[in-house]
C-alpha cells in the first residue's frame, strides 16, 4: 500500500500524467499518476490517504526542489497536471465532490499588471499543498480583493506584481483589507518586491518561492 502511494507521489513529482504521455522519456509506456491512482482506489486505499500520502507529497517534493533551484517552472506545471489528472479520480469520493482543504487563499496580480506566471505558480503549489485557491486573475482592483475576502471569511491573501510601478498598488490593497478586516493576513510576491517592501506597506510577509509560503501556512493549518 505504502509502495503504491510512494509511486503516485513519484509520478506527480516527475510530472508523469498517464501511460500515454511520452514524458519523462525513461518512463515511456509506464503507468502515470492517473493509472496508479485508479489502481490505489481499486485496492481499497482511502482517497484521503491517496491525497495526503500520495498526491500532496509529490507536489511538495517538486516545490522543495524548485525552492532549492533543482526544478524549474515547467517541472511544476507538468507536476500540477499530473496531480489534476489524479484528483479527478478521487474527487467523487468526497462529499459533494469537494476535496477537504486547509483553508482559502484569495490570489491575484495587482492592478495595472498582467503578469501571471508567478501567480499561477503560487496557485499550483497552494492547491497541491491542500488549499482552496480563489484566483482573481490579473490587473485586479483592490475592491475585488476586498469583496473576495468578505465572501470567504478567514481567507489569506496573496498579491503578485512584476513591476516597480505596479508593486506600489499593493499598498492600497493591504491598507483597504486591513481597514475592513484587520486580521486578514496578506502575503506578497513578485520580482521587484522584498521583505522590507512588505514591512513598508503593512503586509504580513514576502516569500521568495511558493513552497516557502505554503510550508509556512501549513504549519498552522491542517486538513
Amino acid at each position, binding site marked *: 500500500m505504502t509502495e503504491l502511494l510512494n509511486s503516485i507521489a513519484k509520478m506527480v513529482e516527475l*510530472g508523469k500524467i498517464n501511460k500515454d*504521455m*511520452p*514524458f*519523462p522519456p525513461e518512463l515511456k509506456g509506464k503507468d502515470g499518476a492517473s493509472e496508479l491512482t485508479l489502481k490505489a482506489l481499486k485496492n481499497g486505499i482511502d482517497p484521503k490517504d491517496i491525497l495526503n500520502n500520495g498526491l500532496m507529497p509529490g507536489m511538495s517534493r517538486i516545490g522543495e526542489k524548485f525552492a532549492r*533551484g533543482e*526544478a*524549474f*517552472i*515547467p*517541472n511544476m*506545471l*507538468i507536476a500540477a*497536471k499530473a496531480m489534476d489528472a489524479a484528483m479527478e479520480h478521487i474527487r467523487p469520493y468526497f462529499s459533494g465532490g469537494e476535496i477537504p482543504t486547509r483553508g482559502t487563499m484569495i490570489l491575484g496580480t495587482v492592478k*495595472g*499588471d*498582467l*503578469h*501571471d*506566471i*508567478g501567480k*499561477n505558480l503560487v496557485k499550483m503549489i497552494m492547491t497541491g499543498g491542500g488549499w482552496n485557491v480563489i484566483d482573481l486573475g*490579473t*490587473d485586479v482592483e483592490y475592491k475585488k480583493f476586498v469583496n473576495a475576502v468578505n465572501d470567504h471569511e478567514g481567507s489569506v491573501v496573496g498579491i503578485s506584481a*512584476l*513591476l*516597480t*510601478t*505596479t508593486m506600489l498598488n499593493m499598498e492600497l490593497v493591504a491598507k483597504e483589507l486591513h481597514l475592513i478586516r484587520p486580521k486578514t493576513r496578506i502575503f506578497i510576491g*513578485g*520580482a*521587484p518586491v*522584498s521583505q522590507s517592501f512588505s514591512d513598508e506597506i503593512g503586509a504580513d510577509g514576502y516569500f*521568495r*518561492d511558493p513552497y516557502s509560503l505554503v510550508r509556512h501556512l501549513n504549519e498552522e493549518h491542517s486538513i
Partner: protein
Amino acid sequence: MKDYYYKRSENFEPDFANLLQVLKGKIPDRPTLFEFGINNRLVGKLSGQAKEDTSLRLAPFKRLIKSFVNAGYDYATISAWRTNTLSFPKGDIDSKESRSLNSGNMITDKKSFEKYCWPDPEKGDYDIYFDLGEYLPERMKLVASSNGGLLENVIDLVGFENLSLMYMLDENLTTDIFNSVGSSLLRFYEIVAPIETIGACIVNDDWGFKNQTMFPPDMMKRWVFPWHKRIVKVIHKAGKPAILHSCGQLKNVMDTVIDDIKYDAKHSFEDHIIPVEEAFDSWGERIAILGGIDIDFLARSTPAKISQRSETMLRKGLSRGGYALGSGNSIPDYIPDENYLAMISTVKMI
C-alpha cells in the same frame, strides 16, 4: 544661454572606439556610457525635439542619434522594431503596463505552425542602416538589435505555459518552431552585422525569472543556445562584438554564455538577483559588463545616492576595464529625469 536640456560637454564627440575597448574587456580612453533604450519623452528632451516626426523615414532615427550624442554615448541603438526589417506577427496581445508571458497563442499545434505566416528576413528594409550613415558623427556607430530574441519570440508565439508543456510532450514541433524563429534571426544578423554603420550587435533575449532560468538548462542547451552560438558566430565573422541583453537569474548558464556561446558582453542586471558590482567581480574578467545600475534603485532613490553608486561602480570598472556605465535594463518613462542625469553625469566627475 544653453539651448539644450543636457550635454555631456560642449566639445563632446562620440567615438565608438571607447565602447569597442569596453567590449574587448579593456579600459576605454574615457569613461564610457551604455544604454539599451531610452524612453521617448526623454529622447525628446535630450534631442531638443519633443515630438517624433514620422513623416520622413529617417527623421525619428536622426532624433534618436542626436539624443544619444547629447547624453554622451559613443553610439546609438537601433532596434529592428523600428526598422521594418524583421518581426514575427503575434496576433492580438492584451497589454497594459505589462503583459503576460502566457498571452501568445498563435502556434499551439502542428496545424497552426504550418498555417503561421512566417516573415521573410530577406524582404526587410535594410537600406536604413546604410542611409543613417550620413547622420552619424564621424566616429559614432549604431548598435543593432533584432525585434526580440529567439526564446522571447517563441514564447510570444506559443505562450510560456504552453511552451513549458510542448517541449516535454512534442519535441518535434518544439524543434520546428525554434528552427523557424532561429533561422530568421540568424539571417537578420547575417545581413546587418557586416554593414559599415554597425559597430556591434545586441542579441536581446530574456532567459530568466527572479530565482532561476525560465526553462531548465537542458532545454536551453537543446533549443536555445545552439542558435545563439550561430548568431554570435556570424556577428564575429563580420568583425563586430556581440552583446547579450538578457534579464533574470542566469547564474547557472553564465559559463555557457561566456565559454561556449562566446558573447563579448552581458547587459541587464537587477539588484535582487545579482547587483552589478557583484556581477563585475564574478564574471568581469571573462566578459564585459554593461550598465547594471538597478532600475528600481534609479526609480526610487535620490540623485545624490545614484551619483555616488554610479561613480563608485564606474571607478571600479575603470580600474580593470570591460565596463560601461548605464542602467540595469533601459530608461523607462517612470524613472525621474534628474535620477537618470545623476547617473550619466558621473562621467564628468572622472
